[in-house]
């Protein structure tokens, strides 16, 4: 059964296309929502647009959908320039943040809507909607109305509806933000599974860094209408190019230090930490600011240790420790739960760099 459906959908959905956003600009009065933004997605790629609210990520997505008027720039889908094409003729599937199912139609009718508009025969429509409802695992709920479905189910139907028209590009605008944590993680994995299965080029907007890291082929971190960095989740997390990216994706400690050699920096009250000097060579003796992830620091119990434990919070597999020293410095360290049990409230602790500093920049 599943086998048959899979081959069916594969034959129905075209392979992903390339998408290019070139110099997109959008101004609201004097405020720039998009400042000449450039982004290229390769066929079948899932790109996450990540950033705080107001960074322009949703504007970019809506511009790609044709729902936002641009002040400048070009949108290319495949080799077609669609900049001037209205949303209804772009052949794009979109899932929205708020529940956007048509309340007057059943789940099945919602999925079939795009096909009905395209004048597809009703037998063809039924076949396609049955296929898609099966893909999202909601066949038994086909005849329910949106208000009879849970939030997660509604977003699944919205996904099926977006996919029914065999779109060239799939756009997801914070589709999980209204759901509770467990459903969110589940649906996130499901979206990725379906996206990989269909090989459809996909843009996913979110402000949740965990979601971005889990889903993306590449993450575009946006700030004030521009892409600050675009790279694989691993690179964005472990080699951020700017302070903003380092702080937005994951937690960081901000420390001051002095460069002591080509790839070592001496950090106050901690000691020597290694760093990757390839991109940012500094002269010895330069005063710098060092950004270090909580898990890149290690703790030793020693009589000469200056650091004291302030509080612990248990995160499951790891424990977050808040430390302070007599000069008032504060540092967050993340250890595995096993390691953390050894640290007690009155232990004298010293810190050391376990792995590379995330980012070193001139103070």
């Amino acid at each position: 059964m599943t086998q048959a459906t899979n081959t069916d959908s594969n034959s129905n959905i075209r392979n992903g296309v390339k998408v290019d956003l070139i110099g997109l600009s959008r101004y609201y009065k004097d405020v720039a929502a998009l400042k000449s933004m450039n982004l290229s997605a390769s066929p079948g790629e899932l790109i996450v647009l990540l950033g705080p609210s107001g960074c322009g990520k949703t504007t970019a997505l809506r511009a790609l959908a044709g729902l936002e008027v641009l002040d400048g720039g070009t949108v290319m889908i495949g080799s077609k320039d669609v900049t001037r094409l209205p949303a209804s003729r772009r052949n794009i599937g979109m899932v929205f943040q708020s529940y956007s199912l048509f309340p007057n139609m059943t789940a099945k009718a919602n999925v079939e809507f795009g096909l009905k508009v395209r004048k597809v025969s009703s037998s063809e429509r039924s076949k396609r909607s049955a296929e898609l409802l099966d893909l999202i695992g909601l066949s038994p709920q086909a005849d329910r109305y949106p208000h009879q479905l849970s939030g997660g189910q509604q977003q699944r139907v919205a996904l099926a509806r977006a996919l029914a028209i065999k779109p060239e590009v799939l756009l997801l605008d914070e589709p999980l933000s209204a759901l509770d944590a467990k459903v969110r993680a589940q649906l996130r994995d499901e979206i990725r599974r379906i996206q990989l299965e269909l090989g459809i080029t996909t843009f996913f907007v979110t402000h949740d860094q965990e979601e971005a890291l889990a889903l993306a082929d590449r993450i575009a971190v946006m700030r004030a209408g521009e892409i600050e960095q675009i790279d694989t989740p691993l690179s964005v997390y472990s080699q951020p190019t700017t302070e903003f990216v380092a702080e937005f994706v994951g937690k960081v400690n901000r420390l001051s230090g002095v460069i002591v050699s080509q790839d070592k920096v001496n950090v106050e009250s901690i000691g020597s930490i290694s760093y990757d000097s390839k991109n940012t060579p500094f002269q010895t003796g330069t005063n710098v600011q060092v950004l270090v992830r909580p898990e890149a620091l290690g703790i030793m119990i020693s009589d000469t240790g200056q650091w004291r434990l302030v509080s612990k919070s248990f995160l499951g597999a790891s424990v977050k420790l808040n430390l302070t020293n007599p000069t008032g410095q504060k540092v967050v360290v993340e250890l595995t739960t096993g390691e953390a049990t050894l640290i007690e409230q009155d232990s004298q602790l010293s810190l050391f760099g376990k792995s590379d500093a995330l980012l070193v920049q001139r103070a």
Partner: protein
Amino acid sequence: MVAVTTNVGRDGKEPGAANVLKLGKAFRYGILGLVGIFFIIPILASARFSFLGNNNTITISAYTQLFSTPQFWSTLFLSVKIGLGTVLLTLALLIPTVVWIHLRVPKLKRVFESISLLPLVIPSVVVTLGVITSFKSLPNIIMGTPVILALEYVILALPYSYRTFDSAVQAIDLKTLVDAGQSLGAGWIKLLRFVVLPNLRSGLLGAAILAFAFCLGEFAVASLLSFTTFPVFLVQVGQVAASQAVALSLIALLFTWMPLAVIIIIFGQRNASSKKKTVSLATTIEQEETTGIA
């Protein structure tokens, strides 16, 4: 006062909570009963009066005389025609305007809402003369015919129809629904037909009913423009034959109420959630009509 009593009862902390709750309930039903009596007594009294003949005999002659008056049918027909025309014009004006405001210029919602209330503030005579002056240049097909009355009524009924439709639009996430429809390939006509209008059914119905009921009860403007509509006929009859006038107002009540009931039953069954809204709305209109005519 009622609300306060009920709240105390729900908390269940007061020693006599159950008693207080009962008292609150009795109080509410008491008020409801009083209001009901207030509305039903005049209708019953009118009904009794309309069946009263000479020497306290019971007769239906008031009704038979009315039904055999040709003017009864012609004025009723005219009023229904004007009513339907007003409803069509109102919807043709409201649907695109309100949808456009909500999608494109949501900041102006308040402004348009206040504009829609103006007919309540401006005396209807002024509105009447304004409409006539504005459409003076139009061909006689509008000026000399009841069409002008329909134009007047569209404006005069706007405070009711606009608010009803506007709040229905407010209740749905119009922008997201339209965005979703567009991304699925629907143009404006299909969007309106399959997505927007079906989800605004209760609002459309409410606006239509209010506009229609307004037309069937309006006297001043029709009289001013010397059209003998149903309410004008009613007043004319009242000046010569009291019992016929009362019979007529009861018939008017029935004629307004029946189509409303039919519409509500048909639409109410399809959409259970909007049912409550429309029923309560109809009750209000019915009451307004009663007090207006009697």
